[in-house]
């Protein structure tokens, strides 16, 4: 079902944990839907020095969190903004169709953490929008035939 990369990131997730006094934290998802993602950022001089995550969710949720954190670690905020769900999926060699939303969750968690950082520091990040309340990320368009 899952690619080798997904399984690798699920079995050996990178950057699991918490950051004390983080520059920004983002929590998205909903335990009701079976998934919650929380991402912590440590930002200095526009650079993501450190990143950690915690996830309650399926194998894909864990793997996408892990990959998303890998992709932004050491990058600038602007580079981090380019880490979309598609980028995460590609880096993982793809996800099964029912699991695409898990990667959406990873993108949203990251952006929520960046938003938190921007709010706390009164700065504006280009292209960043506030996290939506109770976003229904499960609502992926079906290939309806």
């Amino acid at each position, binding site marked *: 079902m899952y690619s080798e990369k997904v399984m690798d990131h699920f*079995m050996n997730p990178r950057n*699991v944990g*918490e950051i004390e006094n983080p520059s920004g934290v983002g929590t998205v998802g909903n335990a009701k*839907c*079976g998934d919650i993602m929380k991402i912590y950022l440590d930002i200095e001089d526009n650079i993501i020095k450190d990143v950690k995550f915690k*996830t*309650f*969710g*399926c*194998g894909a949720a864990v793997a996408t969190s892990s990959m998303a954190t890998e992709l932004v670690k050491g990058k600038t905020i602007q580079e981090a903004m380019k880490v979309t769900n598609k980028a995460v999926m590609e880096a993982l060699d793809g996800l099964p169709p029912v699991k695409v939303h898990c990667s959406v969750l990873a993108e949203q968690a990251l952006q929520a953490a960046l938003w938190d950082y921007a709010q706390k520091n009164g700065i504006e990040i280009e292209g960043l929008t506030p996290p939506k309340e109770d976003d229904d990320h499960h609502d992926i368009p079906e290939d309806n035939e």
Partner: protein
Amino acid sequence: MQKIYFDHAATTAMHPQVVEAMLPYFTENFGNPSSIYEIARKNKQALDESRDKIAKLLGADPKEIYFTSGGTESDNWAIKGIAEAYKNKGNHIITSAIEHHAVLHTCEYLESQGYEVTYLPVNEYGQVDPQDVLKAIKDTTILITIMYANNEIGTIQPIEEIGKIAREKGIVFHTDAVQAVGHIPIDVKKANVDLLSLSGHKFHGPKGVGVLYIRKGVKIKPLLHGGAQERGRRGGTENVAGIVGLAKALELALENMEENNKKMTELRDYIIKEVTSRIDHVKLNGHPTDRLPNNINFTFDFIEGESLLLLLDMKGIYASSGSACTSGSLDPSHVLLAIGLPHEKAHGSLRITLGDENTKEEADYFLEVLPSIVQRLRDMSPLYEAYKKEQNL
């Protein structure tokens, strides 16, 4: 690495004797049982003998045994076939909230066709109260369909009592016994049922073949229109090999049931006792005693089911979370919701369903690896983090 199959409720391996019984019907006795010549007569005979055998094992008459393509077809046929046959009498159907999707989705379909369906609630153990059935009956009630034993939490329903109520009220009673047949003793007469569904692959028989028991005198419309097979009630060239296999598998299952059940019940209770003592924040779902001898269902707080399964898989342990055919879907288990679990917990269940080949050694290996897997996932879980903060841990 050793491999431990703990998912017998999803499906089972065919018994070697079942395969052996089927083989002659693939290449040698391959005729169409409807044909009149010699080569086909052997097939007709195998079909008749299988029907007789199954009837005897269920306490039924051979004329009450109809072959189908599995539990899903049996359920669909029973429910739609009765709904249509009795539509002049009424349009109300009573079922429970914890039925298999083959029943639930069929009922939902019938709702879209103008039928009215009552979904009875269950108690915290997943049992339907026969008094609730009685209270739900109306003048327009034409069918009661309540499963014999639940596929996720293993709870056994008070079928006899419900059947008695149905019989007294003159309402047709169907039970989805897919998880029960071959696992606990069942006699259709004693159970007071009018229709009963079963599926071969749940008791070491072949996939893609099942039975619908239809009591004599019950009117039913066909679901599969076609040839004159199955006394004109179900068209389609008979899957002779599959039918022979199902009959053999049922025979074997019942022959060894007492002994197997004793062994599995012990193993089940051992695992339940050990898991609940070795791990915190864990709950057994389903009835403590009115449950299938091979079923164990836990929820572990703060963690999600699929991740748990994947990590167990890595250790060579094959279990499941919810029913097999809904994995891949994102909905929490409707069964766990019905017994009162909150949404996030309804995502985090682990179902272990034993088979007679499972051993104490396998159970011990499972008990050894499970705690660290659960801990690992909890350490990753934001819910656990929040819980610990709350408790100042």
